[in-house]
């Protein structure tokens, strides 16, 4: 066990946990932030996507000892950013959700994409989002919602 001081959603939190405990379980079971989801435990589905210093990270394989002073942003606080709020709104307008379990991770990945690339193309979306699985298959709408949030033409430009 060791003590870690974390910057979570702009707040300072201190936890006393095993250094190898993944950030996911610190968030969920120690800090009661349950929006970040467990899907696979091996960074193969993207349900646990958070931001570390604004960049996408899979919380299920991020040992707490590796986090340091990086700013941790979770789905609970993503609406505080302009891009995050636009993504959330687009998710509602396009009615992306089926079961919704992957969608926190999708929103986090989509927000990171648009924050770094204001006008994503279909290819950009494919690259940025292919690590986030949706078992319900809402990909048509995820693509549309990302473009809606970014304010670009929503037409699917891929080869048909």
């Amino acid at each position, binding site marked *: 066990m060791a003590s870690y001081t974390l910057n979570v959603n702009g707040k300072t939190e201190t936890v006393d946990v095993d250094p190898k405990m993944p950030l996911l379980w610190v968030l969920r*079971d120690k800090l009661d932030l349950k929006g970040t989801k467990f899907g696979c435990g091996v960074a193969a589905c993207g349900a646990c996507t958070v931001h570390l210093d604004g960049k996408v990270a899979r919380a299920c394989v991020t040992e707490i000892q590796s986090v340091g002073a990086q700013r941790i942003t979770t789905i609970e606080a993503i609406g505080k950013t302009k891009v995050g709020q636009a993504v959330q709104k687009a998710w509602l307008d396009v*009615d992306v959700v089926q079961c919704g379990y992957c969608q926190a991770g999708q929103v986090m990945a989509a927000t990171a994409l648009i924050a770094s690339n204001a006008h994503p193309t279909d290819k950009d979306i494919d690259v940025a989002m292919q690590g986030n699985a949706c078992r319900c*298959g809402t990909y048509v*709408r995820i693509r549309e919602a990302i473009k809606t949030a970014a304010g670009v033409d929503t037409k699917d430009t*891929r*080869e048909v």
Partner: protein
Amino acid sequence: MADGNNTLNTSRRFFLLASAAGGGLLLSGCMTPADTTDGAPTLAAAPAKPAAPVVDVNSFIAISPDGTIRIMAKNPEIGQGIKTMLPMLIAEELDADWSRVVIEQGDADQARYGMQIAGGSFATPMHWDNHRQTGAAARAMLLLAAATRLNVSVDELSTQPSMVVHTATGKKIAYGDLVADAAKLPAPDLKTVKLKDAKDYRIIGKPMRNWDSPRIVRGEPIFGIDVKVAGMKYAYFEKAAVFGAKVVSANTDEIKALPGIVDCFVVKAGPANTTKMGLSEGVAVVAEDWWTAKEAATKKLKVQWDEGDTSGQASAKFDAKAVELAKGAPLANLSKSGDATAALKAAAKVVEASYVYPFLVHAPLEPMNTTAHVKADGTVEVWSPTQRPSGGIDLIAAALGIDKAKITLHMTRCGGGFGRRLDSDFVVEAAAISKQAGVPVKLLWTREQDMAHDPYRPGGYHNFKAALDKDGKMTALANHFVTFGRPNSGGALTPLSNATMAANEFPAGYIPNHSFDQSLMLGEMPTGPLRAPVSNAVCFAHQSFLDEVALAAGKDPIDFRLELLAAAPTAAASAGGRPGMVASRMIDVLKAVRERSGWDNRKSLPKGTGLGVAFYFSHSGYFAEVAKVKVEPNGAWRVLKVWCVGDIGSQIINPINAQNQAQGAIVDGISEMHQKITFDKGRTTQSNFYDMPLLRIDYAPQIDVHFHITNNPPTGLGEPALPPVLPAVANAIYAATGKRIRSLPVAQKDVSWT
């Protein structure tokens, strides 16, 4: 089907409800505002709870004096959108102002709500009349209360959203002002209430967005895995990799001594159950947080298992046995018409092929979990993401010897279902662990456990022979279906759950001769329904083989299917347990998809790109789909686009969700073409999403969904769009490459071309 909803439950009509149900559940209060009349929820914070007092008008509707209308959603929500859709039916006939509706998830309570299940695409046909009648009955009570107050005849009154209106004077009374009086009136017989004309609908047929979405995109805790109750500990349950193994010994004392561990003990198997989806034997590790329990169990726990006699199970052996069985005489005939053997002998051409599909796992994205509290007073409280709450209650009652009446089960939102959560193994495990630990526990499985302990979609083998006459007309189909079974009490092999095919599988009854025969081999793995069960497998085999027969006959695959469908069906088309289809409805969707997909222009496509077609009738829905596939010379393949035309009756109740469901079913079906579950040494080989892949956004096609509206009662949509996409894609791969897909998953090396 028994449905307790046909009478209003008057015993609850006068209850004043203080707040949302779910005592002790920290995530209670399932309300989210729908702030605009087009059903678009906003990100505005949800009200904590409706203003009290709230008057129950009936079992499903409670109205507050401030005009808030609370509607109970009775069925489990697994992503099919039922929590939004069923209340729409009630709200429509209540003539509710949708912006004042709050939807609340009902607990498991079949006495109050009737059957509660997410399965079979049943919810629409089961509730279409009943829920509209329930809303209309409450509206009738509000009208009568207004008539009494205004001292006029009910005939002089009408309603606008959430208001009774006196037509002559224009005087309006809000529902909130009438509810106290209305709730004292006798409830009308549901069968006698007058329903709206469809042209007057204000809610049905309008795009009402997913009720829970605002909470989901804010990351609020609404799934089973998010449940937290006072004093709760976290549990991991170690089961053997071999199905049904028993614990010989385990180092439980060593585990108990580890930091953060609360308890560790062996859980004995529950009463025997033939599906192998009850309480299995294993070792529970209970800790202060789940990761600590999981780490101890996966790294330090040592269990000696008695693996029993199923540790020799292997897919390679099954495949070899299936070939051997296919060569021999079938074990049983499932259905026949005419004389297929004679027709095959007399045929101008015989087409013969064998089709194979693998076992599949459900893998909903939220891993199996349940929170349970077996209390000192002998009652049990359970919070579970389940598709069939009664199954969990039954298993807990049987395994723990507890009266069902003492078990309360709260249904949480489910992170996907696909049929997995119709079984309740994870529910009874949580209760058994709570009982032994003496504390409330949240049991959570790993993904690896989910892959290893699933009620798998059974694999199967179809050995076809078709007869064509000199005009290219199909005169016979023989299918020797090899599948899996276990001995019944009399020792005879009987098919495993969902290891079956319908007696009237198309084209039985549409051709003069058919024979469907079955052979079984022993399979000691759990099996169960996967989204569009049986259909998701059999459709691939039948609609792919029909494509082969069409091409052998020298016919366009759509023309060939239309010719088959044009025949007057014999009794064989409706024999067996599954209802027969109305061929004209299928003809119409097939013609429509031909048009929308540009099927007749497909000859201009370059080599490596092709269109394929398939249709299927399941869950009362008629679906025809065309897939466009591109295959690179090295065999890398992707679906570029799918056109889907479906007939599910007269109303698309919530069109924005209907589109989503059909799109999702198509992605799901394509995903299945990449997947398999195999067994070796009695164990499941695959373990996580790196060897059991889910389709990703870069491989998801463009999708065109069209609903063909017909004058038939509305039916369900969770499942029937799925089955045809697999053979449509397989047939498109053939069109693109000349490589026939007779085995799933599709391997890149099998579809390369030069």
